């Protein structure tokens, strides 16, 4: 019984990081109706950024948070200009294809350079024990950092001028343009923020689990599940849904082989989409 409780608590911790990752996906989705299929690879980019920087500089992994965040932001801006800009306002299927093709290029380069070997970042932090179980310090710190970054993102969207512009563009792009909001710049910044969130969450996941260049697919699928649960384009819902997914994973892990977890999550994704097309954690008024 205590074992299940412990794995559920651990699920909450990991789930916060999943929620942060999904926030990046849902932000872009909600603002411009573009599904970013490079999401998984951007998560992996955060992991590799962490790995390379810690290997090169020998500093604590958590010092790498600002460079990964900034790097992710610029990678996102670049992604916007390369693959998204011409797709905004066209059928969503076209932007699926364009981000998918960018993803292929990134994965192709990644596998050519690093192969598909397993990488690992050593983190030594004291854990917190509860009876026979010890929660690793890395999990706790990752969850705290994820919650803080998500909170900052929320404050940015709610209370800054730029954040309000992002929400305005999400509501109605033409109207935003009419009142003088530079929509193109806002869209580019939104993609930058979304990708930065993906990279940072990837970095945090990198401190928890070993990873390969292809790990992104699994985390991307998790982000889709979380997005579907939380409601499309709803960053706060994404955070709660991430926790819900983490708890589910924690509760399921003791009973099911690991390779089936993704399948269960996928089935959940389809069921949620069919039963609650608007998401479970959606508030009545508009999402963003």
């Amino acid at each position: 019984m205590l074992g299940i409780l412990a794995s559920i608590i651990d699920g909450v911790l990991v789930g916060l990081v999943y929620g942060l990752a999904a926030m990046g996906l849902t932000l872009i989705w909600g603002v411009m109706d573009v599904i970013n299929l490079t999401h998984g690879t951007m998560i992996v980019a955060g992991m590799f950024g962490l790995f390379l920087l810690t290997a090169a500089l020998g500093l604590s992994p958590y010092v790498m948070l600002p460079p990964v965040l900034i790097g992710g932001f610029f990678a996102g801006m670049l992604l916007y200009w390369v693959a998204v800009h011409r797709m905004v306002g066209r059928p969503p299927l076209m932007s699926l294809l364009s981000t998918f093709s960018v993803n292929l290029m990134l994965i192709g380069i990644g596998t050519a350079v690093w192969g598909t070997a397993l990488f690992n970042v050593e983190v030594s932090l004291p854990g917190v024990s509860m009876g026979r179980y010890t929660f690793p310090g890395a999990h706790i710190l990752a969850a705290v950092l994820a919650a803080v970054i998500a909170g900052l993102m929320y404050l940015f969207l709610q209370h800054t001028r730029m954040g309000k512009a992002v929400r305005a563009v999400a509501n109605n792009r033409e109207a935003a343009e009419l009142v003088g909001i530079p929509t193109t710049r806002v869209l580019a910044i939104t993609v930058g923020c979304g990708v930065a969130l993906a990279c940072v969450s990837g970095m945090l996941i990198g401190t928890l689990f070993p990873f390969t260049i292809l790990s992104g697919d699994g985390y991307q699928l998790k982000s889709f599940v979380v997005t579907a649960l939380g409601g499309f384009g709803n960053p706060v819902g994404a955070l709660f849904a991430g926790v819900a997914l983490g708890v589910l994973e924690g509760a399921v892990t003791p009973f099911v082989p690991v390779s089936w977890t993704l399948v269960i999550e996928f089935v959940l994704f389809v069921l949620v989409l069919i039963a609650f097309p608007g998401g479970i954690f959606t508030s009545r008024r508009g999402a963003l």
Partner: protein
Amino acid sequence: MLLLRLTRRPFFWIIAVAVAVFALAPVYGNNVSLRESLLLAALYITLASNLNLMLGYAGYINFGSIVFFGLGGYICVWLVNSYNWTLGPSLLVAAICVSALSLFFGLGILRLRGAFFALSTIGIVEAVQAFAENFTPWGGSAGIYLSSDIFTPLGGPARALWVIYFVMVAVMGASLYLSYAIRSSKFGLGLLAIGQNEDAAAILGVPTPIYKALVYSASAFLPAIAGGLYFFKSAFIQPSDAFDLTLSTESLVVAMLGGQGTVTGVAIGAYLYEELRGYLLTSSTFANFQLVISGALLLLIVLFFPGGLMGWVYSRFPRIKKVLE
């Protein structure tokens, strides 16, 4: 009736001539390397034409078309290996099983529309791959090896490769005719209407959920046979080969390159892509960057030529639309 009507159009005979050329070209002079290259081209044409049924006609992106190919391969190889079936029946049973399964799943996931459907096809690949890795009769992640005796009923390995080639070309021809027949039928018009505007199509009386599930299932049949042939030929199957993301992606690239929604374009696109790929794989610099190049190609097409090759040809020579569909 539909077939009879189609024989009166020139395009029907153009396909027939193309398939005959495909089948006979390597026989002349017993050219084995040409046969292998054309076999791969026929595989690409089969996969891309069937993907096109979803992508080009109904406007639904299927990122998981490789599942049909891999699952067909698995069922066929399994029947040959564990039950000593011959190639013909195992191919047929594999294709029927895969089609039936996709009809069943199609009725479920095709309730999701547009982008959500595309996302769930990614999940289907994960799910089927997880199943194949955990299903012990299929050898788990180690896969199934076939003994070399399997070629004996076909007259030894050398002759078997020719038989496999001819069957593959026949499957390719069937794919082209299937694409063409669907395009010319009422069913195809319904699908095109769904591709244009699904709500409007539903209001006008197109039974959209059934049509979508049917075309999903129809697009599974021939790729499953192709998968069975392909893995029977290599006498070995494992999950990472059977559900390889690359092939799935390449079918998308091919369909977009030639022009989604056209029959000719997809076939030409597949042939061109196969030639390009053969060139890239032999040059040592590019062998590792195959995904990068398909990705870049797809991006360029999506950004600048969404109509593909045939889109360009049609806009330059509108008359040709009547002959090459």
